[in-house]
Structure formats: structure tokens, C-alpha cells
């Protein structure tokens, strides 16, 4: 009996030691500080990044992470700071995002967070960040209600669905004049939010709308595609998983359905969604077409050759926090409160996004733009229009 108690006590002690020790399997640290000079002590701080580094949209998370690392490296060099990036993998799920958020909040070195990527994640973690007074800036969460006041420390460097949704819907009406269309949500907050914005616009234009709903885990859309009638000339896919969009397009081809796919930013992925003739809207520009971004594009291609529009906004978000930390460093030690205050008063005249960065009182980017791309027969994305 005594022996068993001893063994149990040792096991418990080992467990406690492991828990107090290194960070969990979902977080890892990446130090991206510039090479230290011999003079002066650098201002140090940590930034957390919540991204879907693994899971259904890992390709986007990898892109976001690559651009965040780039931003930290460039800003450390420019500002003489020693900022460390702490990774948190959320797999685009609210439950994991919550776990990662709690880990970040309990790390006193983290004074700002980039991400999370998905609107459903922001809904889950916003209150936690708010209570902790920790600023977090997303480069891809677009649901309109995220900035209605319930997430006081949330900011975003992209446009909202209230911009993207109506712009997409009006483009479809103006250019395709469909008599009927199918719009399919993927049962997540982001997708359902966009559908709720777009459907009234279609219905008001007298278009017959077939609203369907499929889980992100579904990978065969043959049954849905079979429902598409000859009158339906457009399929609207406000989805987060680009590979699913690709499969939908293949199912359309299998059944010889002549339907144009119009996707939203979740489908923007030059490596995963390449159905010719499709249209994809995005909150982010094609930075290869912005002359001022030439050197950043070179850097980005070296770090992540096939990047799309998810990386640049995260670069912008990380840069905002880096600058806020640098500003706080000038007057003392960066803390969550002074970094938050500095972010609120951000006023960058230019950025990687090709526009100034300044936030309104709700945390939205002022004059955020929306971009629409067409996929040509070679599977390349070409800008069609932007707001």
C-alpha cells in the first residue's frame, strides 16, 4: 500500500513538473530577432500567432505563418527590437483556438496576437482576449458582427463581409444575370454570415435561390451538383476549404453542368482552387501587382513560393503590432495596455496592402478594399475589379 502511494506521488510530481515545464504541443516558439549588436539592450517582447498551421486549411496557415515571420524579422531589423513570434495551431477550430488563446493569455511576455484566421474562432476567443486586455489583429476574419463592440480588443486589416458579400452579389447580378443560382454554405460562421448578407440581395433582384448547406468534412458534392438545374448558371461558394471548391468544380465537370463558380476569400488559393472560368473575391490584393511591394514579393517568394492573398494581410497585422511594441519601447517597457493603446492610434500612410492602415473605433480598417479575381484557362488568378 505504502509502495503504491509512493509511486502515485512520484507520478503526480512528474505530471506537475511536465505541466509547469515547456509549452504544450500546440505552441512552439520561433525566435526571429535580428543579430544582436554589442551596444545597448534591445527591447524584447513576444507576439503570438494563431493560425491553422495543420488541418483542413493548413496551406493558408503556413502562408500566414511565413508572412508573420517575415514581418517580425524585417521589423526587428528596422526598429532594433527583439520580438519573438510564438506559434499556436488552431486548425481553424474554435475549441483549439480557445486552448491556444488561454495559453497565450497566461504567457506574460505576449503583448499582442496575430489571428485567429476564422470568424468562428474570433467569436470564441474575443471575450477571453477582451478580459485579458490583450490586443489581437486578424488578417482574415471577415464576419461583420465581430466589430459590433463585443470584442473590444479585436482589430482587422481586411474588409468585412458587409463589403464582400454585397459586392460579390451585385457583381453576379450585373455580369451573369442569372435566373436562378445555388448558394451553399459550409456550416461555419464565416460562410453562414456571407450567405445571410447575399441572399436578400439575390432575392430582391428576382433570382430564384437554392440555398444548400454542407459540412466542411464532406468531400463529394455529386449529389448536390445533380440538383443543379439548367436554369442555374451560377454556384456561389462562400467556403473556407479551397480543396472542397476544387472538388465541387470537378463534380460539375463530371456531370457536364455549365455553371460558373463564384467563391469568396476562403476559396482564394492558387495552389488548391484552379477551376478555369471561376471567380474568387478576396479581402487582400495581389501584391505582385503593387510596385512598392517588389522587394517584399521577392522575400515572400523565397519564403513561400505559391502565396496568395492570405499572407499579406497577416504581414500587415504583424507589422502593426511590431510598430506598437517599438513605440511602447521608446517610453518604457511594452505591456498589453500600452501596446493596445498604440494599436488603436495606428496611422500608417502606406502598407504591404497598398493602402494606409488606420482603424476606426470598432477596430475595422478604414477604407478596407475588396478584390475580385478571375481564374483563366491556365488556372491563373487575374484581377478583375476592386472597390
Amino acid at each position, binding site marked *: 500500500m505504502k509502495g503504491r502511494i509512493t509511486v502515485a506521488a512520484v507520478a503526480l510530481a512528474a505530471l506537475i513538473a511536465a505541466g509547469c515545464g515547456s509549452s504544450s504541443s500546440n505552441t512552439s516558439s520561433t525566435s526571429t530577432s535580428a543579430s544582436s549588436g554589442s551596444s545597448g539592450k534591445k527591447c524584447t517582447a513576444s507576439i503570438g500567432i494563431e493560425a*491553422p*498551421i*495543420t*488541418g*483542413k486549411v*493548413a*496551406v493558408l*496557415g*503556413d502562408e500566414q505563418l511565413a508572412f508573420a515571420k517575415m514581418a517580425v524579422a524585417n521589423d526587428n531589423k528596422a526598429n532594433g527590437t527583439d520580438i519573438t513570434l510564438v506559434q499556436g495551431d488552431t*486548425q481553424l477550430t474554435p475549441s483549439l483556438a480557445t486552448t491556444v488563446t488561454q495559453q497565450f493569455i497566461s504567457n506574460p511576455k505576449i503583448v499582442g496576437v496575430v489571428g485567429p484566421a476564422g470568424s468562428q474562432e474570433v467569436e470564441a476567443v474575443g471575450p477571453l482576449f477582451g478580459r485579458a486586455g490583450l490586443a489581437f489583429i486578424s488578417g482574415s476574419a471577415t464576419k461583420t458582427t465581430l466589430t459590433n463592440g463585443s470584442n473590444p480588443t479585436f482589430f482587422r486589416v481586411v474588409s468585412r463581409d458587409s463589403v464582400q458579400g454585397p459586392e460579390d452579389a451585385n457583381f453576379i447580378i450585373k455580369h451573369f444575370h442569372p435566373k436562378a443560382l445555388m448558394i*451553399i454554405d459550409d456550416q461555419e460562421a464565416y460562410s453562414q454570415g456571407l450567405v445571410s448578407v447575399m441572399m436578400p440581395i439575390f432575392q430582391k433582384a428576382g433570382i430564384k435561390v437554392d440555398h*444548400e*448547406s*454542407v*459540412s466542411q*468534412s464532406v*468531400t*463529394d458534392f*455529386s*449529389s*448536390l451538383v*445533380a*440538383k443543379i438545374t439548367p436554369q442555374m448558371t451560377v454556384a456561389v461558394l462562400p467556403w473556407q*476549404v479551397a*480543396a*472542397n471548391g*476544387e*472538388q465541387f468544380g*470537378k463534380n460539375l*465537370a*463530371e*456531370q*457536364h453542368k455549365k455553371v460558373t463558380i463564384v467563391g469568396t476569400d476562403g476559396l482564394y488559393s492558387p495552389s*488548391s482552387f484552379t477551376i478555369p472560368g471561376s471567380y474568387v473575391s478576396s479581402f487582400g490584393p495581389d501584391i505582385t501587382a503593387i510596385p512598392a511591394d517588389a522587394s517584399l514579393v521577392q522575400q515572400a517568394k523565397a519564403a513561400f513560393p505559391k502565396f496568395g492573398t492570405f499572407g499579406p494581410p497577416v504581414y500587415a497585422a504583424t507589422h502593426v503590432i511590431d510598430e506598437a511594441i517599438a513605440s511602447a519601447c521608446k517610453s518604457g517597457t511594452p505591456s498589453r495596455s500600452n501596446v493596445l493603446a498604440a494599436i488603436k492610434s495606428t496611422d500608417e500612410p502606406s502598407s504591404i496592402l497598398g493602402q494606409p492602415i488606420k482603424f476606426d473605433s470598432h477596430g475595422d480598417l478604414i477604407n478596407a478594399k475588396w478584390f475580385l479575381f478571375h481564374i483563366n484557362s491556365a488556372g491563373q488568378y487575374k484581377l478583375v475589379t476592386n472597390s
Partner: protein
Amino acid sequence: MRVFVQELVNGLTQGSVYALVALGYSMVYGVLKLLNFAHGDLYMVGAFIGYFVIQWFGGASALAAPVPIVLLAMFLLAGGGVGVLGVVIERFAYRPLRDAPRIAPLITALGVSFLLENTALLFFGGSYRIYNTSSFISFGTGIHIGVLSIDIVRIMVIVLAVVLMVGLRLVVNHTKLGRQMRAVAADREAAEMLGIDVDFTIGATFFLGSALAGISGVMAGLVYNSVWNYMGFTAGLYAFTAAVVGGIGSISGAVLGGLLIGLAQSFITGYVSSTYTDLIVFGILIAVMLVRPRGLLGRVQLQKV
């Protein structure tokens, strides 16, 4: 009519994949009374093997061998490889727990499932891998007569599934190994006393069931294009449902259950709404269980008193 025929084709394709995975569940349950929750992940491993065979032959757009050779290699390597993996799992994860309380191997099976998923994540990453079937098999090839339009890939999946199911039935009912499998399923102790090598028989059962799961993984890759490390969870859930609806332990039941689930998903999506597909499919499961707890083709278990 066109919609009906298309949904029928979709349902048969989907159902064939579920049926092959469900067969493995039923076979293992039959001999060991174990619900192998790692079975869906064997399907995932098979899908990945198929993907890497395509890459080994030069990639979907530039295959270095004729398509039939590549397909044969995919099925053989996936079936054989996953079959061996199934035997290894049985040997090290389940055999030591053969006489343990039933909860122990069940928990172990869950652990094996997580192990397979995360090992795949470690080695292959989290991104979707794409078969890009249309690059080497044209959608235009197939049967396109009137309202019937079915491409060659779906024809191949359905035909191969039927061949495998018939083949399995022949093995179970007309071979020495099949007799041994049935004997072990009926009474393991008695089978051992009669001189049957129980370990070998159970190992062979795992090999066959796992091979079927691996082959169905390749089929899923060819039809649905995307493979990723968590794909086995959903497929395993539906296949398990199919095995239970059909009658766990019954080979015919697994086939019937698989086809029923596949067709139900397809027709509900086509004629009701995709939003309610899972609701109705699992509603069917509950209804069948309430009316016929042993499943549609399951046998009543006799107990000696």
C-alpha cells in the same frame, strides 16, 4: 428522371466505398467481438498510399506508365500495405488484450486511431493531397446514354467493389481459411481445441479486412480527389453505422448497410436538402436499432444458460 438516375449512381458509388470499409468492421467484430475504431484510419492510410504511388509514377499530369498499370499498382500496394499494417496492429495492440475486459481493446482501438491520424500528420503534414484523377482519366469516358451519365471512375469503383464483395464471400464460404474464420467467430475456444491456429486465423481476418479498407481508400481518392490525415474519421463513422445497420458481424449485412447509407445520403441531398442529410441518416440508424436491434441481417446471439 435525370436527377433520380444521377443520385442513384452517386449513392451506389458512395455506398460501395462505405460497404468495403464496413466489411472490415464486421469481419473483425465477427472473430474478436471488437469494434476496431482504427479501421477508418486504415482507409486513410490506403488513400495516402495511392496518392504516393501516383507521385512515384511521375505525378497525375505525367504518368510514366499506362494508367491501368498505375491503377493496379495503387490497389495492390494499398491493399497489401494496409493489410500488413492491420496484422501488425492486431499483433501488438489487440492480441495482448484478447482475454481482457472488452473496454480495454476498445480504448486501445481509439488510441490506435489517434496514433495513425497523428503519425500521418507528422509525416505528410496537414494539407490536403490531391489525386487529380481527371488529369489521367478523362471524365468524358464512361456511359452517357439518355439520362444515364456515369464516368469510368465511378463504374470502376462500383464494379471493383462488387468483385471484392463476391470474392470475400467466396473466401469465407468456400475455403479452408473461411471455415476457420467462421469457426473462430462461432467459438474461439472450441476452434482452438479442434486444432485451428486461432492467431493465424485472426491475423488473416485483420489482413483481409484492412486490405479492403486500404483499397476503398484508393477508391475514395480517385472519386473524391482529396486525401488528408483526418479523412478516416468521417468515413469510419459512416461505415460503422453501415455495419451496425446491416448487422454487425454479418458480411451481407455490411454490404447492405453500406449501400443503404450511401443511397440515403444521396437521395436525401437530392430530394430533401443537404442540410438534413446527417440528421436523417442517423435517424435511420436509431430507427433500425429500435425496431431490429441486431441489425437488418444480423443473427440473434444464442446464449447458453
